[in-house]
């Protein structure tokens, strides 16, 4: 029996009738068309399906939509603001942090949560924060570099708050 629920995803409200046993991953991808959230194992063993619940990274493959109606859900589609990429998206693209790109959405969401909490993470703190996201292509190095570069850009942008556009230029 489907239940009518309301989800708040990337600032938008979705009313959707779901079967209780559908995971948030399935509902995002199959009901809401938000296919940017990927799946690699569906058992909580890879991190590809990471989304943010009220800013906190969790696995959508192990989340029941019925339980998160009171949360703000952020997926990869929600990182752009008014058509402008998040600095992490820019640096991931520019510095080769995405190869096949399949782990990238989950990786980016973990990184967004990290920089919100810790704007200047050390390499070790980055490794800890990403330790739930497996990547099979990059060897992680370029991902660390991209996060460090984004942290730098965000801090420059923060200092020159009046001119964020100019400050965000590479």
């Amino acid at each position, binding site marked *: *029996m489907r*239940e009518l629920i309301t989800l708040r995803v990337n600032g938008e409200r979705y009313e959707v009738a779901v*079967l*209780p*046993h*559908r*995971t948030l991953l*399935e509902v995002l991808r199959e009901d809401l068309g938000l296919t940017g959230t990927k*799946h690699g*194992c*569906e*058992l*909580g*063993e890879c*991190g590809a399906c*990471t989304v943010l*619940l009220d800013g*906190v*990274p*969790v*696995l959508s493959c*192990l*989340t*029941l939509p*019925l*339980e998160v109606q*009171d949360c703000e859900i952020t997926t990869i589609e929600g990182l752009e603001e008014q058509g402008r990429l998040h600095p992490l998206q820019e640096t991931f693209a520019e510095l080769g942090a995405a190869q096949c790109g399949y782990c990238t959405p989950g990786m980016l969401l*973990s990184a967004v949560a990290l920089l919100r909490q810790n704007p200047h993470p050390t390499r070790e703190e980055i490794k*800890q*924060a990403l*330790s*739930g*996201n497996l990547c099979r292509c990059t060897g992680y190095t370029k991902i660390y570099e991209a996060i460090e570069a984004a942290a730098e850009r965000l801090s420059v942008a923060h200092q020159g708050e009046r001119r964020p556009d100019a400050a965000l230029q590479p």
Partner: protein
Amino acid sequence: MLRLPPFRYLAPRTLGEATRLLAEEGPQAMPVAGGTDLLPNMKRRQFTPAVLIGLRHLRELKGISGSPEMGMRIGAGETLTSISNHPLICAHYPALALAAAAVSTPQLRNAGTIGGNILLDTRCNYYNQTEFWRHSIGYCMKRDGSICLVAPGSPRCWAISSADTAPVLVALQARVRLVSVRGEREIPIQELFYDDGMRPYTREADEILQEIWLPPALGWRSTYLKLRRRGSFDFPILGVAVALRREPDGRIGDARIALGAVASHPVEAEEAMARLRGQQPTPALLQEVATLAAKRARPLDNADLTITYRKQLTPVYVRRALDLLLEAEQGSGAE
């Protein structure tokens, strides 16, 4: 894509309502908190409850309060992340913070709760497999089968207690409170466990683990070491929790050593603990204690790496945990 089996979902608003629903729905119902253990197990059809009762929003299961002087209360619904980040827990019950931080991955710790970790289903690599795999091999007694595939001649199930926080809470002498429509009980955490892979907990099907009580911590030091292959994701293939208190003259006043992932329940190394009490720690004594503690480890071939290896590493990890605590003490002076 691996998917969940169908179930009804109920969302009680109070603990009282939750226990009532659990009683009404009977054994076909299961409570779910973080879901990080139950949902994968359901996807593999290790559990197929008809009803899930969500504990996520129950305020009675939330909160970390108290002090190291008086002891602390931890709501069973607190996430592992909130425990590993809690300043008082980090400072005074470091073993618990370490164990909580050692569970799986950041994402799982953000969702997974301490209650869920304590009540983690026992694990076995003949059991934590998909329905297809278990069907292929013919099922084991823990679910749908009649024999133990690890030890086919054995009358019991040898699935392993794999919760990182469980041996720590045993070493810290924590107590837990369980509530049901029949009432509530508070028991030393050791009494929550059975040495039985099939039914590893004394929790009744209608009971909900509400909270954990930690005794006062003054004078105690504690640590947790975890053996696993990778820096994250992996369950322990050995967990060593040690808590100890020293006398002003340097002798060991009291010591608690508990081992995880070596049996179907967290194991206390009583003989080793007794050998330590009242003694001045010397390298020879610590080695002896480590060897004694390791006698309690009886791994079987149902987890990562070999039995011999996991057995051989037990004294190494016990001694390293003791060394860590005693060196730290020397470093910072007696408290």
